């Protein structure tokens, strides 16, 4: 099954993937801060991911891979 994978260190926490996800399973982390100082996006329920790659299409920093 194809799933999205977010590179939490490259993410700038802009949240464009959050708005693009049709399953509403991406949210910005409330506890984790990455090395750049941003709250990275996280997939809250990886089982529900359908691998549509819409989050990856909207990611301006190309830090989402779907495989």
């Amino acid at each position, binding site marked *: 099954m*194809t799933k999205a994978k977010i590179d939490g260190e*490259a993410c*700038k*926490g*802009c*949240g*464009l993937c*959050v*708005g*693009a996800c049709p399953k509403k399973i991406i949210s910005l982390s409330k506890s984790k801060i990455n090395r750049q100082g*941003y709250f990275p996006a996280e997939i809250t329920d990886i089982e529900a991911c359908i*691998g549509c*790659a*819409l989050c*990856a*299409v*909207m*990611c*301006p*920093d*190309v830090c*989402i*891979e*779907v*495989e």
Partner: protein
Amino acid sequence: MAVFHKTKDLTSKPFHYCPGCTHGIVHRLVAEAIEEFGVSEKTIGIAPVGCSVFAYDYFNFDMAEAAHGRAPAMATGIKRVHPDCLVFCYQGDGDLASIGTAETVHAACRGENITIIFINNGIYGMTGGQMAPTTIMGQKATTCPNGRSGINGYPIKICEMLATQEGTYYAERVSTHNVKQVLNAKRAIKKALKNQIDKKGFSIVEVLTNCPTNWHMSPQDSLKYIEEKVILYYPLGIFKDKDAEVKNA
């Protein structure tokens, strides 16, 4: 099976753009389009001055840096010396629509066989949010704090203007405010590059993008602003396509 992976035509260097800036999306679309044509080794890109001044660090092509606004002039020279290479300019609105208007218009009038990717976010991003020629009426900037009014003149519509020129082969305006529009933008960018490969002539794709930092909005709100306000002034669509004209004749 990899459904989506980062194209090899983008380097591993992280973009310096602000969070939520859709410059990164357009970088990816251009790199993916060129990778899909299989001409990465024969591509020369021209980087502008503005936020995307470091574009040469992010694209895995041969890149050159032009003086402010002079990318189409530089592309003209490079294309004439290397007619087999794919030459594209990546320019912002402060670069193409302001200081570089002369170069852009005359490259179109001469019908140079180059491709221009024009990023229109309606503001000078790099210098801190001053009013650009493309700032829409009523939009606030540091040099028009009460919103652009008639005293500042009116926004310039590049695609409409270039569509009137005989030398322009293809002019289209696309946006990046949602997934559908991003996919449509990729189609337009591929068509503009294919026109050059087929030696058809001057092609320009204007991409409406956001500037969350200088518009003082969250990234999501800035995309909504494009959808609700910017598109009203800059309608999307094809303004000139000589392919269609040939078919209809």
